[in-house]
């Protein structure tokens, strides 16, 4: 065998192998045939013959105790839990791609369309219990989990109706009324800061798209709609720009802190040191201050969010659902557990107490825990405020099918703006562009504007 010949043969073999692998990999999946245009039929709902173990992934503190309670009383349907607080959607996404998704996973309302676009869910409407659950939940939550009543893909778990947390002692000390409108809020911000340069009315965390989206929601800044076979993207709108410009003014005047990350130790430290006077937050936030700033008990009060003009609108920040994931072959048992988890008063009470969850179930508002005054907040019935807030949440607000990517782009741009490179309104432009581009990448038909 000659030198050159063998070398050529070996080289040729390597190249051929590489090319064939590349070719195989480039083999596209075949286009689905005609009938795929119809929605996939709901999966069957048969009880299993023997014992069943379900996987349930979530990020709720204390959920392991809730699951333990179920497991104690349901030996035939055991639930294994996994906490995915770090990179919740990365974990879910990778599991889906690998075909190893759990039966049930916690999915935020804002991620439902995105994951649905990835075919992540199973329709449980074949289960009688599933469709019957509709009446047990607050209407806007069911609307989002059923995608406008087109199937049962998840059960709502909790919501985050927003309100304003106020250090009433600081306001009293500076002789200020608690603000009812955003204009009053801005005015109070100026007065507080003038009186004490170390005092800010609140903080603006650019890396919190969910919070910012909640503010947009309050101003009816609807970002996505679906009509005529296309998504209509209006991330950049007059209402959203109004919100951005408002906060930009506060930032420019140095009336809000921009160096604190929500939920971080420095944030709590700043509140601890009386450097921040209010918190624009959701119902689930009530346990944050109770648990982390125990010596401020009695100093906080909760009032409705400042409003734009005379409208009483509120926004929702966060809250999650428990979704039936692709590959779930135990729908019957999953529906049973999911239903208990999110409508049973005992479960709801435990989730509220340990995880700070504000239930999406209508039974939730009747919970004894929610009807009582909360000691930390001067025994005020803070949940009445959240219940009212809940009523004023725009029910037609829709999330986009690439929300994850858009949230990330929004955060990157908001962070740039708070660092001085551009304005918050530019972040809306960036998010709009990211929405259109990411939908285009996924071959989702979309246009800008209404």
């Amino acid at each position: 065998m000659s030198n050159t010949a063998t070398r050529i043969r070996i080289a040729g073999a390597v190249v051929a192998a590489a090319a064939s692998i590349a070719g195989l990999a480039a083999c596209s999946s075949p286009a689905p045939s005609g009938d795929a245009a119809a929605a996939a039929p709901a999966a069957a709902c048969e009880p299993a013959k023997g014992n069943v173990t379900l996987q349930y992934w979530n990020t709720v503190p204390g959920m392991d105790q809730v699951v333990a309670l179920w497991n104690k009383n349901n030996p035939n349907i055991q639930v294994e839990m996994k906490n995915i607080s770090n990179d919740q959607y990365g974990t879910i996404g990778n599991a889906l791609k690998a075909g190893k998704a759990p039966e049930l996973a916690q999915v935020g309302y804002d991620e439902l369309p995105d994951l649905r676009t990835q075919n992540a869910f199973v329709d449980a409407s074949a289960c009688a219990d599933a469709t019957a659950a509709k009446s047990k939940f607050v209407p806007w939550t069911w609307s989002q989990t059923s995608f406008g009543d087109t199937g049962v893909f998840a059960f709502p778990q909790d919501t985050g109706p927003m309100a304003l947390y106020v250090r009433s002692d600081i306001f009293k000390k500076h002789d200020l009324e608690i603000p009812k409108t955003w204009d009053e809020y801005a005015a109070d911000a100026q007065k507080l800061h003038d009186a004490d340069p170390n005092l800010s009315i609140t903080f603006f965390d650019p890396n919190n798209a969910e919070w910012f989206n909640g503010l947009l929601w309050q101003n009816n800044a609807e970002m996505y709609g679906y009509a005529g076979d296309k998504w209509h993207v209006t991330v950049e709108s007059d209402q959203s720009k109004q919100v951005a410009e408002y906060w930009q003014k506060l930032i420019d005047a140095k009336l809000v802190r921009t160096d604190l990350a929500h939920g971080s130790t420095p944030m709590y430290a700043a509140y601890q040191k009386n450097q921040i006077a209010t918190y624009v937050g959701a119902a689930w936030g009530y346990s944050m201050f109770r648990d982390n700033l125990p010596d401020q008990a009695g100093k906080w009060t909760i009032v409705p969010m400042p409003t734009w003009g005379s409208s009483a609108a509120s926004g929702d920040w966060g809250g999650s659902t428990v979704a039936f994931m692709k590959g779930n072959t135990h729908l019957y048992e999953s529906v049973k557990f999911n239903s208990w988890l999110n409508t049973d008063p005992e479960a709801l009470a435990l989730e509220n107490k340990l995880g700070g969850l504000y239930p999406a179930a209508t039974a939730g508002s009747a919970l004894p825990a929610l009807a009582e005054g909360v000691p930390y907040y001067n025994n005020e019935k803070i949940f009445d405020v959240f219940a009212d807030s809940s009523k004023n949440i725009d029910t037609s607000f829709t999330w986009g099918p690439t929300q994850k990517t858009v949230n990330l782009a929004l955060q990157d741009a908001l962070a740039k703006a708070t660092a001085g490179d551009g304005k918050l309104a530019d972040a809306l432009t960036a998010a709009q562009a990211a929405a259109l581009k990411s939908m285009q990448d996924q071959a989702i038909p979309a246009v800008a504007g209404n």
Partner: protein
Amino acid sequence: MSNQTAMRESRVSRTAVMALMFLLAIYFLLPIYFLIVAATKPQGDLASTFGLAFSHFDLFKNLGTLFSRSDGIFGRWALNSVIYAVLGAAVGTLISALCGYALAKFKFRGREFLFSVILGGVLVPTTALALPLFLLFSATGIVNTYLAVFLPSIVSPFGVYLARIFTAAAVPEEILESARLDGAGEFRTFFSVALKLLTPSLVTIFLFQFVGIWNNFFLPMVMLQKESLFPITLGLYEWNGQTARVSLLQESVITGALVSIVPVIIVFILLQRFWRTGLASGSIK
């Protein structure tokens, strides 16, 4: 130059050089010292006391919290790191040694071509491969398993490169010839003769690969979602991302970081005579 001037000059140079090196030594050791101090403190003291001074000595309590947290997941992570790194480097060293030895000592057609392919592989770092590996593995269904991290880790083109030059330097042709004459097959020659000569070099290769796998972050991060499969690096990164929500976690991150660097330092100190001779004999050209 008079003797006195020379001595004075050299004393000045000596002090300057020592001062410079001390400053550099402080730079290199400062974070580790800080870690040691911080690991002994209770969570509350972290922000309120000066970072380089000890306060309350709570090291054992912190260690207890660390290992009992989340049903002892940290111990699990430590075990995983050991499995990935020790087993991975062991297997990797063996196959690199076999391959490098063959490339150094056997003459065959295509030898230089294969060696160039390996050199090309040295230029492609594992991080660049992690995402492509993830795409491939998820298409074949082995993501989120031990193998997903272990298998790619055993491949070390740099190990083969080192093995080749070490073999060329440390294993004389005559020894191999005589072994062959004694009737020993190639494998017996390799295992009973060559390996003994190569031991310091093999330890060097093992250490490089061990550190490489122990430190590897991007590959496990991309491949693994199941917490019980995480190596320490990924586990501590995950905890570090949660300290906002669970502030007590911060002390465990610090204590865990300290625990994670101790084994490697010990391994290095124990094996240092090997890798020093190994590196010298290779004298990387």
